[in-house]
């Protein structure tokens, strides 16, 4: 399953990067979203999958899966949510003020 996940993660990274490089702000935001998912799965896969029960001591299992990546991912989910919503409002305001969401048109002026 790890190998399959590795390739799935690669594809998620590829699509995320491709979207970030495009010109429309909306696509860029969606790209960062996909990139975050990819990173989460990568973190989880790195610590091996299904090595034990969920890290709840009430399960009384012999082994548990690694809780550390889960803690990292939980933090990351919340932060990425904050970033995504910030991005959205930024795009909204930029479009309202400047009338475009095309990155090529949002370039700095030459004389700066």
């Amino acid at each position, binding site marked *: 399953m*790890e190998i*399959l*996940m*590795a*390739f*799935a*993660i*690669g*594809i*998620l*990274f*590829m*699509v995320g*990067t*491709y*979207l970030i*490089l*495009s*010109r*429309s702000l*909306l*696509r860029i935001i*969606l790209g960062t*979203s*996909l990139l975050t*998912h*990819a990173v*989460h*799965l*990568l973190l*989880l*896969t790195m610590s*091996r*999958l299904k090595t034990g029960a*969920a*890290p*709840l*001591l*009430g399960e009384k299992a012999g082994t548990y*899966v690694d*809780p*550390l990546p*889960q803690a990292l991912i*939980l*933090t990351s989910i*919340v932060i990425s*949510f904050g970033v*995504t*919503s*910030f991005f*959205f*409002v*930024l795009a*909204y*305001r930029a479009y309202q003020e400047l009338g475009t969401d*095309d990155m*090529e*048109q*949002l370039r700095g*002026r030459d004389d700066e």
Partner: protein
Amino acid sequence: MSLLHFAILAPFIYAIAVPFFRKYIRGVHTGWFVLPVPALLFAYFISRVPDVQGGHKELSTVQWIPSMDLNFTAYLDGLGLMFALLITGIGALVVLYSIYYLGKDKEAIHSFYVYLLMFMGAMLGVVLSDNLIVLYGFWELTSLSSFLLIAFWNERAKSRYGAQKSMLITVFGGFAMLAGFVLLYIMTGTFSIREIIGSLDVVTGHALFLPAMLLVLLGAFTKSAQFPFHIWLPDAMEAPTPVSAYLHSATMVKAGIYLVARMTPVFAGAAEWFWLVTGVGLITLIWGSFSAVKQTDLKAILAFSTISQLGLIMSLLGMGSAAVYYGLSDESALYTKATLAAVFHLINHATFKGALFMVVGIVDHETGTRDIRRLGGLINFMPITFTFALIGSFSMAGLPPFNGFLSKEMFFTAALNVMHLEIFNVETWGILIPVTAWLASVFTFVYSMILVFKTFTGKYQPEKLDVKPHEAPLGLLLPPAVLISLVIVFGLFPNILSYRIIEPAMASILPSLLMPGDIFEVKIHFWHGWTDEIFMTIGVIALGMLLYLLLDRWSGLYGKLPQKLTLNTFYDRGLFYLDRWANRGTRSYMTGSVRDYLIYIFTFMILILGYVLFRTDSVRWYSGELAEISIYEFVLVLVMVAAALAVPFARSRVTAIILVGAVGYIVTLFFVILRAPDLALTQMIVETVSVALFLLCFYHLPKLKKEMSHMRFKLGNFLVAAGVGAIMTLIALSANDTRLFTTISDYFVEGSYELSGGKNVVNVILVDFRGFDTLLEIAVLGIASLGIFAMIKLRLERKNPAAALTSSSKPDKGSKRRKGRSA
């Protein structure tokens, strides 16, 4: 912290107060308040002369960064004391002179005195520091204050040009010198000059010996305006004349001489040192004196003359280094003469050149010009100034009975003695040394005569002058008078200096030639009988007179020299192209497009990660025990990949948003499958809120256009994206099998209940073990929400109509650009 430290820092501290004098006591010239600083410091250093003469060397250390061997160690020995006396003595006279030279109402004199005091402190720091890094710091500070003082009249383009030139050249040399110091540190493990001299056996013969020497010399040569780095000094003459007299003839340009003298114990004895210092010095000497003759600006004559005299001192230090080779023997005494001449001429040059600069300043001040083609016959108007000029010039030309004569004779002696050397291949090239010395002296004689006689005798040309010349006020005459009297006193009674100043200074330059407790015995005689030197002097006078009288006949030769091949053209061109290429280079990749910058970042990420992966041989196929996979999971992976791949092809916004949402929900499912219930819960909530938010904003955002871009644009994006995907797959595959450290997860699992009383390990980690991380995470969310709130609510009124115009014109501009592109 000793009195010596305080002496170095006093000018800096006092400089803080200077602007207040200017602001609150406008009636009195600020210079009067500055004058006590150099005067008192001079008195202090005079009081230290008997100490140093007795062989006592003061050493006191203030700890700075002891772990890196960086300490502010003040060290007072003969050499340092001699320079300190020059710096403060000439400094006091220059400040006095500047009071009458710079008007208190017209000029920004507060900045002038701040820079001047800064220079004075920095220069004292250079000559009194034992630690090389501290020395370097002060060294660059002198370059900086010189830059500020040259550009004092910064409304003139030439001042700015000269300031920039001096800065670029001296700081370039300074960097080289720093590298040399670091090499010395690598060899000896210390930055202290005394300790480096103490561990000479490590240095000589070390592979880094020669590079260190070359780098240190580069610093010395640029600072002391040696060929071919001399070109900055003539342009530095745009500074006010007191500055030229002080920095660019008496003190700062001698920092290079100081460095060579200071480093002589380390490097002398090597053939490269002998030839480089002597050779570069002699070339500078002859080129400077030769170029001085063709100048028409009085200050330019003095600038080239300074260059040539610095070359003279430099070459003498080179010749003197031969003595170190012989060590404690009778033969070495033959060559220490050169070092003696160097030290003596250093003092003499400061006196007569300082006086001459001040005289030229007076002429400039009273007639409004320094052009010798417009001057002449001033003897009747300025008899006192003329006398000073005459004595100063005769001393410079090496005529008796002035001090310049004595040092010039010694220079000839040294040059003749060097021919007896049987080392360093002197047998083949040695004859060139006295010949060059003699020829340069002839030119020195010629320009000295031009300086005084073209200005003060000849035909008076009132029609070419804007003002009627008259004798200068007493305040302008006093400082050169002091220096000129020193010229005479040192000429007639040179032994005043020899015991007190010169002997201790020589002991610092050539310590290896002294037994402990021994001193150099210096006696300078006026008359040696009919020796070779006196005939050389007579020859100089005869040929010099001839050349001066026939100047009009042969000065046309200068016009024949190629004008386009000068070092100055080389410098200007170099700077121009450097600027242009730098500009082009930067513009070619700083395009202002975020996409381009991201491409650079991603490309570097791919390259660096890929390099490290392959270099450390970490790429491997997963070989351990694999987790089993069910058919449902396989399908889920496929669906997730398919949804992700469909996003770039989505035509409408809703489709794209829903596809990304689908990926998010499948990730949630994976969290469930992969035993992460907390993650699944959180992801579910966040995903739901996100999609809601997307759809909320959706109404306001523009429709997704089909990306109208070139194939190249898309292909580039695709390649970079594929690269990132591939490298991440490799990392995911390789990471599985690599474990460099034992994991701390076991500790969390074991301690969860015992230490924190929680059964959900992930929760315990977040709120207890890593509680601060969570706190900061909440802070990040808070900042983000504040930012969002501000962006939605805040409607900034545009106060500036111009700003409104530019921003409202932006879309227009954009559409124009787009049109231009499609066309």
